[in-house]
């Protein structure tokens, strides 16, 4: 068969016409877009990798710092607790079960917390429960004091009348009851509220399994 695909170089346009200029321009634009997309992907990936590493002080060391636990009781109530604290989606998204498990482990270690909760209360009299409660209270107290700094949100006496100015922080103070009209609001302080101002949970080695909140113990 005779080859009909011979390239005849003389057919190449010697001058640039408008169409070819447009063609070249669009190629360049597309290439640029492609490079930008690739670059942004790369940056995004490296940033994520850095984030996952940023928990450790130094990359080569296997310490995983656990995120601060969500501040639990931050609601000051002016009558009675109606609902759980408003979720803070950003914090919740980043929290891992590790911190919660770690807290459980600490409460078990110091206060025998899980043992106490798992105990069948009906089998014991109040005297026995009272004895156990001392262990639990003492230990919990130690954990809370050692790993958290707690502050009250309101310094006023509970039961006293307080006035909330316009623009008060609704995440700190929850209004209940007869909520009508405009600020300033005056009402009775029912609960002074608690806020964790500092958390000092222990760090964990990378291989540490926080889900084991109490190890089994075998005496030889």
């Amino acid at each position, binding site marked *: 068969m005779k080859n009909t695909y011979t390239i005849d170089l003389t057919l190449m346009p010697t001058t640039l016409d408008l169409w070819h200029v447009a063609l070249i321009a669009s190629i360049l634009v597309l290439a640029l877009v492609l490079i930008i997309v690739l670059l942004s992907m790369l940056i995004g990936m490296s940033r994520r990798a850095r984030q996952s590493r940023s928990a450790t002080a130094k990359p080569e060391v*296997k*310490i995983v710092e656990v995120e601060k636990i969500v501040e639990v009781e931050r609601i000051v109530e002016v009558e009675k607790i109606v609902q759980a604290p408003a979720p803070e989606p950003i914090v919740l998204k980043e929290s891992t079960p590790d911190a919660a498990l770690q807290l459980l482990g600490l409460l078990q270690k110091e206060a025998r917390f899980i043992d106490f909760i798992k105990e069948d209360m009906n089998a*014991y009299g109040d005297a026995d429960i009272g*004895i*156990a409660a001392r262990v*639990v209270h003492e230990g919990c107290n130690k954990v809370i004091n050692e790993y958290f700094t707690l502050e009250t949100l309101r310094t006023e006496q509970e039961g006293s009348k307080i006035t909330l100015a316009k623009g008060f922080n609704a995440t700190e103070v929850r209004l209940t009851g007869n909520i009508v009209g405009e600020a300033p609001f005056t009402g009775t302080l029912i609960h002074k509220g608690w806020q964790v101002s500092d958390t000092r949970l222990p760090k964990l080695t990378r*291989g*540490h399994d926080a889900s084991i909140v109490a190890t089994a113990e075998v005496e030889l």
Partner: protein
Amino acid sequence: MSGLFGHVKKNHSQAEAADETVDNKAEPPGQAGSEQATAEPQATEAPGTSHEGVRFSVGIDLGTTHCVLSYADLSKDEDDIQQQVMAVPQLTSPGVIENKKQLPSFLYLAHDAEIAEGSTALPWREKAEYLVGDIARNLGSKTPIRLVASAKSWLCHAGVDCKQAILPSEAPEEVARISPFQATQSYLQHLKDAWENQHPDAPLAAQDLIITVPASFDPAARELTIEAARSVGLNQAQLLEEPQSALYSWIDNSDGDWRQHVEVGDVILVIDVGGGTTDLSLIAVTDQHGNLELTRIAVGDHILLGGDNMDLALAYTIKAKIEKAQGQRLEGWQVEALTHACRDAKEKIFNQVELDNVPLVVPGRGSSLMGGALRSELTREEVDRVLVEGFLPEVAVSERPVVRPRSGLRTQGLPYAQDAGITRHLASFLARQLSAVDELEAVNLPENASFLHPTAVLFNGGVLKAEVLSQRLMKVLNGWLEAEQAPVARLLEGADLDLAVAQGAAYYGIVRQGKGVRIKGGTAASYYVGVESAMPAVPGLAPEVEALCIAPFGMEEGSTEVLSDNEFGLVIGEPVRFRFFASHSRREDKVGMRLDYWTDEELQELDEIEITLPEDGRQQGQVVPVHLSATVTEVGTLELHAVSQRDEHRWKIEFEVRTGAS
């Protein structure tokens, strides 16, 4: 060494950036012979000079039960220099790391099967060689056969070789033991690593470093402490006595106001009751060209008695009470848990005046919390009886600690104080030091004084945080003083009893740069070697021994004493041993004095010292005439040398030849 007193001046060149290389001040002293040059790098810079490249002054309190590291940033302005205590990252249980201000001085020799892979990582190390700190204490409380505790007390224990792997002394054969020296090294290594992890731009070896030791540490124990520091690369470390450090901390805390609280003629009694030891020192306030000067004039014996004994005493009291009431024998772990419970309960009773009893609960070890719980209570009456009356009895100043003859079958262990009465130890100390102020013009004791009258008291150690105990001590002491018509002693307030020693050490680093008052010290004892007296041999009797004074009391750092008149013939290649004695009370003895009689109270025998003259081109068996020379190094250790009469060649005499013949 004087002239550093008076007001702090703002003259130091600001130590600049942190990370210059070390200008290593450690140089072997020129007098060292070639065979020992490697063994003794020695800081030779004059005290009080300012050091380029040093950014921090670091103090390490290497305690019997806890280590604390405190530091001050010297690059800050004079008035801004703040003491800080470093939180030391440490494992608290496998896989869990916490920052704590105290590093418990415990070491745990874990079994391979005991610890999961990777669960002993530290921020600076994949796998810890030895477990030290909180984790060691926690694991060791359940497995005492693998726990090394009180390594520091072993350092000062005559009769054992501190470089021999002897700890834990109760461990079964298969546990690979370690030496008290290695344990000390491990604590220092941990602190060094922790420091360098937090200050990557300021290596610890390049900072001013002070390590504190009990005033009652003998020369061998001091040497071992310095050697341990050097072995982990801390060549520049210097020693400071703990009671002095406590006083420095008090001076530091007073913000320059301390001169208002003491006056010329004061004798300050420092009472340091730590977790495991009680340490006593006397510091006199004298006048030097119109400035107040502090001189440490006496130190007490090494008394192995402290807060841990107190908790144990309470636990055993409660144990007896439970066993009597309930007729059940308590197991080891229950006593252990009871000791912890007693420690907390005791503090509650001490801190809350209205509290008369605290319930104690020891829950069962199984997952059932209710079943098998042991219940008792600690009452105020028991605390008063056991702790206050037991440890701080109101005794007359003439009373002395009871010494029972040790039973011949005593297993090798630490020589714990037999008498728990701290006040009796104190009475004995003050009476023995009656002559300590004889040479001081400023201090005048009445003729009839039967003991040295302190005029001020500084407390140290966590135990004395309890007001009940500190008040009792003051009451007893003031009772003695009143009985001799002397003015009562006042308490110097404002010290942090737990952290003062470390903080004082860091402050001392600043003082050494010439920025504050310095306590004059010198050797805490006079030292003697035993020489056979020249008398005809009597069959069946060992030859009489005379004590030859080789270093007098109060020799200052950097000074040397030579016994050129006393010649010894040493045989090349053969080790020669001398008996070695120390006295805390014979302060008038001069170098070269021979004592042919002394009481046991005056002179304590330490471990023997040994010299071996290497051949070095000489013939074996040849006798070389030598004389002895004693030097107190700038670091704070005592060094003995044998010096050849012929060519001035020097050989170092080793302390650490503990014969093990206890």
